[in-house]
Every structure is written in C-alpha cells, then in structure tokens.
C-alpha cells in the first residue's frame, strides 16, 4: 500500500554524458535550447545580447529564454524539470533544498567531462566550484561531481563613505581592532557607524559572518557548512561565540543605525547611498545603487585579526548554470554554459556589478571606484582561497534558524552562548537525520 501511493517517481542517478570530441556546437541539425534564468535589470539585458550572439555564431541553434523571478523559478523548477517540456539549461540556487534535491533526484547532469574538455576547472579556483559539487546520490555537499558552473562571484564586505572617513581623520582599517576603533570614533563624532536595517532578517547574517570569518578558519567554516564531517563539527566553538559577543557588543554600543530592527534593507541601502552612515556591511550587489564609477564610496573586506593575514570573507560563486538530465542536446547545452561564462561575457557583465572570478582575466576596471574596489577585493580573497560559503547553506532550515537567532542576539534577548547553542541544535538535528 505504501508503495502504491508514495509520492515522487522513480529516481535514477544521472549518468555523465561522454566527453565531447570537440568543444563548441558540432550539431548541424536545428536545435532549440530552453534556458530558465532569474536575472533582472541590466544583467538581463546583457543576457539577451549574449544569447543573440550565440545564435549568430551557431545559426542552427535557437535559444528559448524563460525569465522568471527568483521565487517563481524556485517553486516551478521542481515541477518543470522532471517533465518533458522542461528546461535544458537552468540557473539553480546552491544548497540542500535546491541543487541538492535536484541532484538527489537525478535531474541534473554531472558536468565533469565537459569541465575537462573546456578546461573549466582551471578557470576558477576550487572554492568557486565546490559549492556546485555533490556526491552523485546528493548525500554529500561540496565534494564530488560538478553539477553547475559559473565564473561570476559574490562577496560580502564593508562599504565606506570616503568623505566621512576623511572627515573623521580615518583611513581604511587594516586590522579588526582598527575597524572597531573606527566605529567608536564615528560614534563619538555623532555619525551612524554602520548603516543597517534588519526587518528583512537576511542582512543580519551578513553582519555576523564577516566577523565570524575573522575568528574561525576557512577550513573549519567550509567543512562545517558543507557538513563534510557530520556531527564531528559543532557550532558551539570559542570563535563563533566570540563573534556573537562582538556583534552583540556593537549593537549595545549603538554602532548600528538606531532602530535597525524595524528598518528595511532597501531603505538602508538608499540611506547609505544618500550619505547616511560611515560604513555598511553587505554584498557586491549594491554597487549599482552607489554608482559603479563613483569614487565617493569604497569597499574593503573585513580586516583580519592580525595585520597582513590573508583576506577572508563570505562569498564565492554566484548562481551557477546547470544542465537538465532530460536534455536531448547536452553538448549544445555545455557549449552554451561555456559561452555564458566566457571572458567576453565577463566584459559585458562587469559594468552591472557582476564580479568575474575567472583566473587570469584582465578586467578593465577603473582604480579608485567602488566597482574597482569590489572587483579587486573579490580577486584578492579568491586568490588567497579565502572565500567562505554562505552560512545559511549548512542545513535546509539554517536560514530561518540563524536569521531568527541573530535578531534575538542583537536585541539582547539571548546571550552569545545561547545563540551558538540554538544554532548548534539545528545543525546536529540535520546531521543526525542524514545518516
């Protein structure tokens, strides 16, 4: 009885297609490639251009682009990708509930043979690839076959208002202690030290992880987030507790926008762009809001505890492109992936704030602009292998657990020790359920 009404079809692990004889499109018959993406704004326009150029290069290929917003793509993809009219190529969010489940269901193609043929693994550093790696049965994250590929990245760091920093007689801090004293100086001068609004809950994660990244090792954080050592790793560590203590301390000392708990993220970005606040901790995606070519703002990675230590920050791969296991033209799809991650694509996408992480790509950015700072910082972190995956990828429920715990921590409702215990409970729960 249980078998008869069990939901979900049969699953088979997807088998990797054989390595193509040559790269590029060799097919000469007419081919239609359906691509699902969630890009918007300027990036979306560049995609249209890249698609048109691909079709010009290979006249027998027609690209059918299906553009959906992030939430819609997430909800519909599960239904569509298994069906006969599903996409051939799709932008998939990393992590357990998204790419992990699709891999487990055998709905995505392992890309290892293509990666070798096109030399993808040499173009970006391993930590950019790792977030798209899964064991073929989807039980291990961060290791195994490659199921998605991108050369574009994201990075979380600290934006600063150049004029204000100057007025306060400060320069870009080189140690964590420097940064903390800069916050104090800003506070004394009556400025808002860190522009922040946490009504949307997700920004709180970014404030926490940039501190955590300086107090825990990249190896620990990566293994913890990928769950590579199961329950042998715990969130209840001195470093994580210390990071929580620092964040709570900052909140208590009034280093954040007054009333940050009730302020929206978009408002915070707008206020920072208007000149309110000395610093703002967030990701590369606000470059366009500040004016990519502007020199009124700058960007640096949260400085390390000890001066001169290699830069570490949360970030890494942006949305990767994956190939559906049901596609009839995997070779054409692979050629498309290569096209969308080429140096040419990087050049077109750069002005939109998309950060190229491909090694050895000379990107024409102007020094001294926000965009220049962000691209430079991302390259430095990536080259030093200092990219830490997003903390909320650790378990399917980690986003909800950490955002709620950070809100409570910053409202002084829980102690740093209770904070790490709350998060550890979620982690051990999930790790136990895996075995």
């Amino acid at each position, binding site marked *: 009885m*249980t078998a008869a*009404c*069990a*939901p*979900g*079809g*049969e*699953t088979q692990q997807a088998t990797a297609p054989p390595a193509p004889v040559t790269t590029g499109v060799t097919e000469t018959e007419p081919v239609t490639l359906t691509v699902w993406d969630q890009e918007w704004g300027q990036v979306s326009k560049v995609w249209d251009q890249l698609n048109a150029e691909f079709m010009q290069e290979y006249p027998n290929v027609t690209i059918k682009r299906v553009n959906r917003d992030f*939430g819609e793509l*997430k*909800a519909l993809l*599960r239904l569509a990708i*298994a069906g006969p009219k599903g996409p051939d190529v799709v932008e998939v969010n990393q992590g357990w*509930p998204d790419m992990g*489940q*699709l891999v*487990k*269901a055998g*709905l995505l193609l392992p890309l290892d043979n293509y990666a070798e043929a096109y030399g993808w693994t040499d173009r970006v550093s391993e930590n950019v690839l790792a977030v798209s790696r899964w064991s073929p049965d989807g039980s291990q994250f961060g290791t195994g076959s490659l199921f998605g590929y991108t050369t574009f990245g994201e990075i979380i760091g600290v934006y600063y208002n150049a004029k204000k920093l100057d007025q306060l007689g400060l320069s870009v801090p080189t140690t964590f202690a420097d940064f903390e004293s800069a916050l104090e100086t800003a506070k004394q001068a009556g400025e808002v030290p860190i522009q922040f609004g*946490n*009504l*949307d*809950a997700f920004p709180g994660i970014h404030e926490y992880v940039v501190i955590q990244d300086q107090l825990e090792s990249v190896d620990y954080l990566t293994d913890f987030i990928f769950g590579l050592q199961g329950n042998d790793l715990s969130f209840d560590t001195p470093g994580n507790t210390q990071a929580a203590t620092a964040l709570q301390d900052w909140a208590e000392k009034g280093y954040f926008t*007054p*009333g*940050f*708990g*009730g*302020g*929206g993220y978009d408002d915070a970005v707008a206020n920072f762009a208007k000149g309110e606040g000395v610093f703002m901790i967030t990701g590369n995606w606000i470059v366009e809001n500040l004016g990519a070519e502007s020199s009124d703002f700058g960007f640096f990675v949260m400085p390390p505890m000890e001066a001169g230590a290699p830069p570490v920050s949360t970030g890494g791969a942006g949305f990767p492109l994956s190939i559906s296991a049901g596609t009839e033209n995997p070779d054409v799809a692979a050629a498309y992936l290569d096209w969308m991650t080429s140096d040419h694509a990087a050049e077109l996408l750069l002005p939109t704030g998309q950060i190229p992480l491909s090694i050895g790509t000379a990107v024409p950015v102007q020094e001294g602009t926000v965009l220049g700072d962000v691209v430079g910082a991302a390259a430095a972190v990536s080259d030093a292998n200092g990219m830490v995956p997003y903390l909320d990828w650790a378990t*399917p*429920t980690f*986003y*909800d657990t950490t*955002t*709620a*715990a950070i*809100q*409570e921590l910053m*409202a002084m*409702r829980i102690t740093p020790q209770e904070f790490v215990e709350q998060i550890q409970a979620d982690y051990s729960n999930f790790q136990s359920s895996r075995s």
Partner: protein
Amino acid sequence: MEAEPAVASRAVAVGSRRRRPSRRPEYLPGESRRIGYLYVAPAFILYAAFNLFPLGQGINLSFYRWDGITPGTWVGLQNYREFFTDPAIREGYNHVLKLMVFYSFLPIVLGLFLAAVLSRIRIRGLTFFRVLLFLPLVITDVVTSVAWIWMYDVDGPIATALRHIGLGALVPSNGWLGDFNTALPAVGIFGLWGQFGFCLILFLAGVMKIPASLYEAARVDGANAIREFFAVTLPGLRYELQVVLVLSVIGTLGTFDEIYVLTSGGPGTATIVPAYTIWSRLFNLGQVGSAAALGIVLMLIVFAVTFVLNRLLERGAER
C-alpha cells in the same frame, strides 16, 4: 444505472398529472429520488476534482517524508506527532490565539457598540461613513500592509506624532514591527483596522431589520439605553454575530498575508503563525509531508472551532 430511475420517475410524474393517484405515489414531493444525484453530478464532479481529490492527496502526502521530487518515504503519523512536540508550532498557535483578540473580539465589541449608538441616533451621510469604514476591506491586504510598515517605522508618522506631543518614550527603539514585544499587537491592530468595518457593516444592516416597534415597546416599558441594547439590539443581531464570529475566527486561524508582508514571522519568531510555517516548509524547505500534515491539522481545527461555535450560538438562541 442512472438512466433507469430517470425514465421511471418521468412516467410517475406524467401519470399523476393525468389522474388522481389510486395508490400512494412512489415519491412524495420532497422525498429523495435517485435522479437527484444526476442533478448534483456536474457540481459534484467539479467539487471532487478541485477540492476532494486534492484533499485526499494532501492526506496521503501527510503520511510521508517527501521533498517534492525524490520518492517519499512512509513515516506513518510522524508528521502529526511533530504537531504536538514542535515548540515552534505551539508558538504559532499561541500567537493566533492572541491575534483573535484583535481580529475577532475587539472588532465585534466595537462594532456592536457603534451599531447600538447608530441605531439610536440618525446620522446625516451615513452611507459616506459606511463606505469609509468598509474601504480597508476593498483594498488589497498587501497594499495596505506596505503603508502600515511605513506608519509603524521608527521615523514613521505615528512615531513622529508621538514625539511632537512629548511622548517619544512610547516609541520602541526598533519601531513597532521590529520590537519583540510590540510586533504581534502591531500586526493585530492592522487586522483590527481591516476587520472593524466588516463587523460594523453587518451589524448596521442587522439593526435596520429590527422592527422599530420593538424599540418603541422597550422605551414604553422604561428601558434605558443599556437595557435596550441587551433586550432588543443584541438578540436581534444574533445571526450577524454568528456570521462575524465564525468568519473572523476562521480568518484568524488562516492569517498569512499580513505576516508575510509585515514581518516574515519576525523579529526572531515573535509573529510566526501556523499558515506561515506551512508555507515556509512547503516552498522554502521542501518539507512537503510535514507541510501537508500541518495543513490537515489546521483544517481539522477550523472545522472543530466552527462546529463548536455554531452549536454554542444555536443553543444560546434556543434558550
């Protein structure tokens, strides 16, 4: 199978028109005839396809652990057990109980009070006021929610007004929606603003249908305004009260839109509600089985509450 009784019943109908029945007719008027099923069939098929079938599917899913793609595993009542053991779910129902004060109790009390006052005095331009009070219900929740987010902001109009009259200390440092203690009541007051007009409109309509002679009789008997309310107005509004109570209680149990837009269940979990948990498990976490079980339990609770409320109100009416 259905064709046979259809023919037979037509024969009877034709026969009984021609002559007086010599024997008791097969069907008395109002007595059930199998042809009735045929009339019901079109509606029933649609209802079954779009309501009963998905419900059955939902019940089936609730016994599985399923992520929405890979084969589910049978877990029996595990998902239902969670309902009793998961403190997050208990917290959600706790919040709903508190919200009922704002979504159900207060709108009814205020609505009754105003209806009683309006039944005693004539107000010029009543239609205008009715439209005004009903307006919140006509505008989409999501739109009004966005406006309320701004009003509740730490620099919003309410806070600014309070500061102007020297009551700035009443403004929580994170605004009303960002404060752990005030977020839920703030959502509640937003709901009250929307619900109140609905209650008042129904009660006003109800008051108009109470015969004026009853009021006159009460006044002749020397009843004051309060006696008049309890002796005439309240009993006269029994059915409206029942409708409002049942609808608002069910509505509160299913609260979702305002939480989704206003607070996303935050700060922390201070405004989490069952419907939000169900949505989040289904679409964010891919816990389809667990979401289905929670949905079924919520449905059963709504049924039970409706049943109990109706029984209580009907028994009260018989007395």
